[in-house]
């Protein structure tokens, strides 16, 4: 499935009233795919929270700027920069000290949610596989369940980004059980 097709499916899913989608992209082109997808949603005047577990938010911001995305209503929760000693000085980003502090993600989403101006909002979780490096499968599954249901209650369209090659059957089943739609999987 091309990124353009994924973006179309996501828009359709939002228009259908879904709140939770699992999106699978191949490892090759995963980075470009997530940036393109975020750019499309921001272009549709959605406000968003981008949670990054795989690379520093400063890099994603640079890529989004290069893609000429509208960043006026986009915020970040960054689980990478503090861990690796990167820059943690950005007004649009909340930094989490360690990727093991999963509850902090929920807390920071709540804080950033208040700053979103757009009525239609999204959370892009990039990526579920990034968290699996630090958390045991049972912890990860519990977290996915809590995150998914928290976002459902808040009616924020949430995209669980997964790398196709790294998502085993067990994790995929947990995501399928929770999601309204599976895109690209």
């Amino acid at each position, binding site marked *: 499935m091309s990124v353009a097709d994924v973006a179309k499916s996501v828009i359709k899913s939002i228009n259908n009233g879904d709140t939770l989608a699992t999106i699978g992209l191949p490892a090759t082109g995963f980075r470009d795919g997530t940036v393109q997808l975020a750019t499309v949603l921001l272009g549709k005047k959605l406000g968003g929270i981008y949670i990054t577990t795989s690379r520093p938010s400063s890099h994603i911001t640079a890529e989004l700027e290069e893609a000429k995305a509208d960043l006026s209503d986009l915020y970040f929760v960054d689980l990478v920069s503090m861990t690796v000693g990167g820059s943690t000085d950005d007004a649009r980003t909340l930094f989490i000290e360690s990727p*093991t502090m999963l509850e902090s993600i929920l807390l920071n989403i709540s804080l950033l949610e208040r700053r979103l101006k757009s009525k239609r909002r999204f959370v892009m979780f990039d990526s579920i596989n990034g968290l699996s490096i630090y958390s*045991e499968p049972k912890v990860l599954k519990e977290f996915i369940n809590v995150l998914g249901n928290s976002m459902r209650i808040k009616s924020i369209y949430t995209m669980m980004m997964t790398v196709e090659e790294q998502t085993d059957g067990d994790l995929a089943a947990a995501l399928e059980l929770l999601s309204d739609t599976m895109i690209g999987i």
Partner: protein
Amino acid sequence: MAKKDVTKPVSLDPRGGRPREKCVTHIEGIDRILNGGVPVGNIVLLAGTVGSGKTTLAMEFLINGAKNGETCCYISVTEPSSKMLSNLQTYGFFDDSLVKEGKLNIFDLTVINDRLGVERLDGTYTAKDMEALLGAFEDIVDELGVTRLVVDSITAVCYQLPDRGSIRNFIFRLSQFLSTFGCTTMLISETVVDSNVQTYSIFGVEEAVADGVVLMGNIVRQGDLLRSLQVVKMRGAKHSRARHLIELTPVGLAVVPLLKWGQDGGQAFT
């Protein structure tokens, strides 16, 4: 004519009854856990290990009350009030004007002791000293019209009392008059962990007399320390008994449910 159905709907609330008036903490998540706040006039033991966030939570409780027009009071037992005030400046939710306007009052117990003439060389209060101290607390609450009080820490006060009976008596009498004045109080209890078990107090008496016990601690997750909070008891309130994660955010403390599998080796309080 059909008979009018007068059957009352069955309440889904297992406790039923009328709720007590609540002292709303305005701390993100805490009021939800406490089903609206701490019942007015309750004495709550805020028990926790070092670095678990007891003082921060208690301070935010006072500051939020002061911001809402209440008169609040902090009695510092373990550090000078000047040091406490300079620490307060580092909190985004603190506002200097609350102190200037007399909404947030900070007292040193050592200064109170000096004025009462109850400072003893051996550090132990006599029965007369205890009476004088209780009288001083009562005067502060009564004269200033204090509705929120924090004693940081009650453990340090208890060390100056001669025995467990005196501790029980002191806290019981303190709670009696504070309750009469409708003053909601947090007594900070410094605890330790022994063989992975955290107690509520050093002397084992305070928790029995207090109306509420809130346990704070550190949980180890893959070497990282996470602050946790759990309400063990709260007289007059239906409350959550689940363990929560507590974090200092730019807008103050915030509480979220703790992941159940996210603890190393089960009960890992430190």
